[in-house]
């Protein structure tokens, strides 16, 4: 493939002092891991909600946007208390945004989804789309956030670490670090706590869980809160990386993360993480190759379709045999 090689050679824009082989590969891997970490966080929210309620929460990507905007409004005040670009301040911004979004997520579930609990899945899906549109259009209104992008305050000073020709941004490290920390926390909650056991029970068989005395409504609320908190953190991380934040900023990462969740096998937590990281890497590599970069959106879906055709339940999902 001489043509492809040529096009990599000419992509000196993405690799500043380029030796377009191993370095290029490493650089794209690092960028891709940062992006994949964000996708993994968002995908976890999709997959958890799917696990307990068996429907796709389209409003998840908008909770992500609301998380970023929460950070946008509270960061200046936090800065007055904890000082400019302090680590403690940043942690506070993350926690507050997560709490606000957790409450929002539970509110959405209570108002829009719970009344539809026993209705056909399609009804709930359309309601979720309606909720998503409602949040987006409300946020776009000039009296709320406005449709124009706004610069996100830098919460932490950005450093660049040079390893040979490879540049690692401190933001990428932050993203991967925060994600790994949260994933460990998630694993602990789901596998090691009482409420996590209840979550797994509800996901396994809601009726039986109810009969065993599991407070199903409370668990579903909690799951929404947890997923929304993860979305808020992902939103903040995404906002740090993105040039600006605007009310539709959640749509594209939300769609990719959704693809990631399906890719890994929806309802499966490790699958969501695997799917997210894979998708982030694929997207970054595709983006680094000129000619392919215009097709980035199509590539994510193309891969998804290929994998679903080979393994219809996703990479780590188990195929369920339908019984009559």
């Amino acid at each position: 493939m001489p043509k492809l090689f040529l096009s990599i050679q000419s992509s000196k824009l993405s690799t500043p002092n380029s030796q377009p082989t191993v370095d290029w590969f490493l650089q794209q891997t690092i960028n891709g891991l940062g992006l994949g970490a964000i996708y993994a966080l968002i995908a976890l929210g999709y997959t958890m909600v799917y696990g307990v309620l068996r429907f796709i929460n389209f409003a998840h990507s908008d909770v992500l946007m609301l998380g970023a905007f929460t950070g946008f409004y509270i960061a200046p005040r936090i800065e007055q208390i904890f000082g400019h670009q302090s680590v403690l301040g940043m942690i506070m911004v993350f926690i507050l945004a997560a709490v606000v979004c957790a409450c929002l997520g539970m509110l959405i579930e209570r108002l829009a989804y719970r009344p539809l609990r026993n209705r056909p899945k399609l009804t709930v899906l359309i309601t979720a789309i309606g909720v998503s549109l409602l949040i987006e259009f409300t946020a776009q209104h000039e009296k709320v956030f406005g449709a124009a992008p706004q610069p996100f305050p830098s919460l932490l000073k950005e450093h660049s670490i040079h390893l040979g020709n490879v540049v690692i941004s401190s933001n990428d490290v932050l993203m991967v670090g925060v994600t790994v920390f949260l994933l460990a926390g998630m694993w602990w909650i789901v596998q090691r706590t009482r409420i996590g056991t209840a979550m797994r029970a509800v996901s396994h068989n809601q009726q039986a869980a109810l009969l065993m005395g599991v407070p199903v409504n409370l668990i579903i609320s909690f799951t929404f809160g947890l997923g929304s908190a993860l979305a808020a953190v992902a939103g903040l991380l995404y906002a740090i990386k993105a040039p600006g934040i605007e009310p539709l900023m959640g749509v594209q990462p939300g769609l990719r993360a959704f693809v990631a969740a399906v890719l890994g096998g929806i309802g499966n937590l490790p699958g969501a993480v695997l799917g997210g990281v894979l998708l982030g890497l694929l997207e970054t590599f595709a983006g680094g190759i000129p000619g392919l970069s215009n097709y980035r959106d199509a590539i994510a879906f193309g891969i998804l379709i290929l994998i679903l055709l080979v393994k219809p339940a996703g990479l780590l999902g188990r195929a369920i045999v339908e019984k009559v």
Partner: protein
Amino acid sequence: MAFSGAKRWLLLGIALAILVSYFTPQFNRYYLGVAIDVGIAIILATSLNLINGHTGQFSLGHAGFMAVGGYFSAWISLQVAGSVPAIWYFPMALTAGGLLAAGVGLLVGVPSLRLRGDYLAIVTLGFGEIIRVVAQNTDAIGAASGLKGIPKHTTLGWTFGFAAITIYAITALVNSTYGRGFIAVHDDEIAAESNGVDTTRTKVTAFVTGAFFAGIAGGLYAHHKQFLSPTGFDWLKSIDIVVMVILGGMGRTAGVIAAAILLTLMPEFLRDFSDYRMILYALLIILLMLLRPAGLFAFNIKRRKHS
């Protein structure tokens, strides 16, 4: 009478469409435009109803097929415009657009219809997005800046003529012996299969037929707006059509047509509140789903049980 009930309605519809298009120049251009929008929405909603409603396969990629038909027929029009009178090539271009959309529908349908429910939804959504991205990067059809200068051939007559044909064709198909298969697949796929219905074939037929009419609607749209942009065919457009089908009640043709009319007219009525109209639209979707989940026009005729 040589014609059955449905055929009579078809002929009446086409005759009315021709009659109305004769008087078209006297109408206000704004109302005319809205009326054509309504007709196109009817074709889209009715064709998606075959896939989502009658056959019960949840597709989120209808705008993609509309894009294929729209772009292809517009491209043909731009190639032959001027050399042949419009009355000859316009229906040809529309049909060609529909056929290409049907071909793409076959390509998409054969592999993806093995999947079910949410997976099918996401795959069709993905295909819709892929079609959009391809359109965005193909220079022959204007790439990201869109296709401009498409001749304006869509009239009230063509739109409602095709709408009548769409409604007739889909109703006749569903009511035929073969069409019982669609409803069987919708009701219970396993039971249908064990009774000798080739479920994959049935689903693909529904998909291809739906895609064909979506392609025709796309062609009408292209020759109505005279401008096509890839962003006009994103998944929000697909969702608009899905909402029409769901509000009308899945599988109820009359309800779906009524919902298509209502949802196309609603933004026009809300023009005075232009700042808030999309917010109201979203709120309406949620409220309708909470209050009338079986569709706007589904009335429960069953008598209440006395206990």
